[in-house]
């Protein structure tokens, strides 16, 4: 929580209250209180198995929480189905590419746009005749460097391009709150900065929370960083504060140390 912040509080885009998720006896997420003001660029870091993806799953509604609430803007969305949250602007990408193997890149993005605009319900006209979604899709693909593979079937794409498509689908939905689950994983180092620049270039009223392991990217693009360890929010602060925090170094160093000891 941005306690002690001097300026007037910005409106809140996404907030959780005491969010918990229990599998069996283990609390994968334990009393998480997270607040994302509008326009934030926040990062979520933590060791593997800390529960970061589970948190994103709870935020988007993949499964219900054991306890706690999720608020999107002023609305309590805890009981809403995933597609309803998407309609309200809460969009995510997946850590593991979750795409449509048999559809082409263009078809996938066009579909996303059609879903957003409500065109996807139309059954009486060929989709090829809907110029606006196709044009918008083509522009988005060009922006992300996918223009050359627009007609390639997704399963034939190299991994890095698939990752870009994963992000393209999210952007096509014109999100208000964007949750990115390790967006740069698998993308060659040079291109990943490009991807983040596209994200950083998003309008100021779009809120972004991204899970990342690459500290360089975190430091470059995040305004604030939240650290998740064993299902609990260890701490939160600016990148500099987090880097200096001995507890955080402990968690990460402890991990590397035990790796070295084997």
């Amino acid at each position, binding site marked *: 929580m941005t306690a002690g912040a001097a300026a007037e509080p910005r409106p809140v885009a996404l907030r959780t209250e005491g969010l918990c998720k229990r599998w069996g006896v283990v609390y994968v997420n334990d009393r998480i209180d997270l607040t994302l003001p509008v326009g934030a660029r926040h990062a979520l870091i933590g060791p593997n198995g800390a529960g970061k993806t589970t948190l994103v799953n709870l935020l988007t509604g993949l499964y219900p929480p054991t306890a706690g609430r999720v608020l999107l803007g002023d609305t309590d969305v805890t009981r809403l189905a995933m*597609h309803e949250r998407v309609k309200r602007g809460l969009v995510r990408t997946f850590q593991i590419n979750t795409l449509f193997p048999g559809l082409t890149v*263009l078809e996938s993005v066009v579909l996303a746009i059609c879903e957003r605009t409500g065109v996807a319900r139309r059954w009486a006209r*060929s*989709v090829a005749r809907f110029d606006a979604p196709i044009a918008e899709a083509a522009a988005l693909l060009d922006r992300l460097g996918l223009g050359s593979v627009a007609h390639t079937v997704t399963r034939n794409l190299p991994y890095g391009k698939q990752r870009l498509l994963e992000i393209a689908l999210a952007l096509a939905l014109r999100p208000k709150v964007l949750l990115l689950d390790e967006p740069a994983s698998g993308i060659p180092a040079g291109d990943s900065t490009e991807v983040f620049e596209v994200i950083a270039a998003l309008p100021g009223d779009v809120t972004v929370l991204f899970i990342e392991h690459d500290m360089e990217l975190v430091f470059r693009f995040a305004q604030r960083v939240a650290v998740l360890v064993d299902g609990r929010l260890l701490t939160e602060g600016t990148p500099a504060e987090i880097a200096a925090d001995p507890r955080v170094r402990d968690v990460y160093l402890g991990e590397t140390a035990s790796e070295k000891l084997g």
Partner: protein
Amino acid sequence: MTGRGAAGAVRLPSDRWQIWDTALWLVPVAVYFLFPGYLVLGSQVIITALFALSLDIVIGYAGITSLGHAAFFGLGAYTAGLLAAHGWGELLTGLVCAAVVAAVVGYLTSFLVVRGAALTQLMITLGVGLLLLEIANKATPWTGGANGLSDMTVDKLLGVFRFDLEGRTGYIYSLVVAFAAFVLVRRVVSSPFGLSLRAIREGAARMPALGAPVGRRLVAAFTFAAALAGIAGALLTQTAQVVGLEVLGLQRSATVLIMLVLGGTGRLYGAFIGAGLFMLIQDYFARRDPMYWQLWIGCLLVAVVLVGRGGILGIVDALRARWARRRAP
């Protein structure tokens, strides 16, 4: 079709009618003139192909595992039969009623089906199909029970053409209805709705994350498919002027599934090719030696699954892709 158009704009494959579409549909027309003695069989092939097409929407596009699609075929068949047996022999309203009855039951069933895993879908569709078979079997005063309904009269087609014994009228009637249905299905499949169905089949996990109400879409697709199956069933009753229990049940559901898979799912013409080849070969073989016919169908089915090429049309597609790769530098 794909690639950049005149103004350099990016395009999606369109659903425009092509030369080989016309060529393929000229075949049944040619059959009418070349094989006048086989028109009764021809009608049955066309009707079964329409039935298989409706199943393709369920299996090939919506991705639902169904072993009970005959339920809707049978509902349509008996609806048309009951109407005709009770004095209402008008053809087109018969078709419409059959479609409505099948659609309503399909709609109600769809809620049970869209939520479950593949095995649950299988069991529920199977269960509903068998339930209806039992109802038809026992409700003798309505359905004629095991004997079916045969005392019916249908009107003349368009008030002019009587259904003759050679099956000429029946053939043209079936062909026209099937063609109209095909055009409709083709349009729906290439629409945004059709694209979303394909996406649900390809990646159901991603669709809710795209804001798509998956359940609702599948309900719509399933209902549509049920209506089409009902129309096919009604066509059969109207052209044959008889309806019996064999329009329902596991045998018919399984057979049409096999035809569709042999021809190729998810490719509209697969239904026609599969139905055509299957029924022609069956007509030839099954009379001679039903046991061996079963054996060869079983082997063929196993082969299709193991080789995994998506039926006949799947092989055609693969060959075309290979040929295209060879031509490109």
